[in-house]
């Protein structure tokens, strides 16, 4: 029962925050709504018994990406112009609603094979064993830091003063 109440509250808060990101005129307030949306998604992860992912969500999205975005807003001084829509606003709305309808229809009508076992908790140790253990994802774990290194170097080269 508590899980259901938590799900509905988090879902409504998350959808409302995401809507205000795309509807608010003030760019800085949109960034703050984005942080609220990230926090709601972290709560959703907790209701799915993904405790490690919820912690990573708060650390990476709320801690790092949101700060990067606010820094970008401050460095570009576009706040005065607000967040206007372009000419494609109505076609974009139609495309988004059509996508929502088609995918929601497909999801509701697919007979998913729900497993009956209880979810694994806590997940941190099992995730570590899967990432680094035998037959795990060690190649992907090795590639991910290379991607991060290349991204950091690319970002530094791009914003460096000539």
């Amino acid at each position, binding site marked *: 029962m508590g899980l259901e109440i938590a799900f509905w509250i988090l879902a409504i808060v998350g959808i409302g925050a995401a809507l205000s990101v795309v509807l608010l005129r003030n760019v800085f307030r949109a960034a703050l709504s984005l942080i609220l949306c990230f926090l709601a998604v972290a709560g959703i992860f907790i209701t799915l018994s993904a405790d490690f992912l919820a912690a990573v969500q708060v650390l990476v999205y709320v801690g790092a990406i949101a700060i990067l975005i606010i820094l970008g807003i401050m460095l*570009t001084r576009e706040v005065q112009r607000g967040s206007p829509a*372009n000419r494609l606003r109505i076609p974009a709305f139609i495309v988004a609603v059509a996508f929502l309808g088609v995918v929601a229809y497909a999801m509701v009508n697919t007979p998913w094979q729900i497993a009956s*076992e209880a*979810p694994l908790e806590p997940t941190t140790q099992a995730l570590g064993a899967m990432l680094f253990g035998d037959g795990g994802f060690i190649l992907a774990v090795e590639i991910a830091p290379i991607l991060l290194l290349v991204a950091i170097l690319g970002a530094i080269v791009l914003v460096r003063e000539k």
Partner: protein
Amino acid sequence: MSIGLEHYLILSVILFSIGLYGALSKRNAIIILMSIEIMLNAVNIAMVAFSRYIVPELLTGQLFAIFIMVVAAAEAAVGLAIIITIYRNRETIDATEINLMKW
């Protein structure tokens, strides 16, 4: 009515559609980047929900979500660096005015 897989999937697709609308219809490049982050978060919810309800013992979906987060962090860093460079050169980040490579 108990919460099932469909509830999480519908929440995920609603968030994805909001992000899609924002990415297609906004002129401010930073708002477009924020909408893309919302879409990545929606995909993460779907991944974790599938992992929780279909293979609860395996955690594969949670691993995929971790790798999506790695790629999202790299994408945010490079995207903001590109936006700041464009702003430095052209004094605007309006996506409709950045049309040098359009025909």
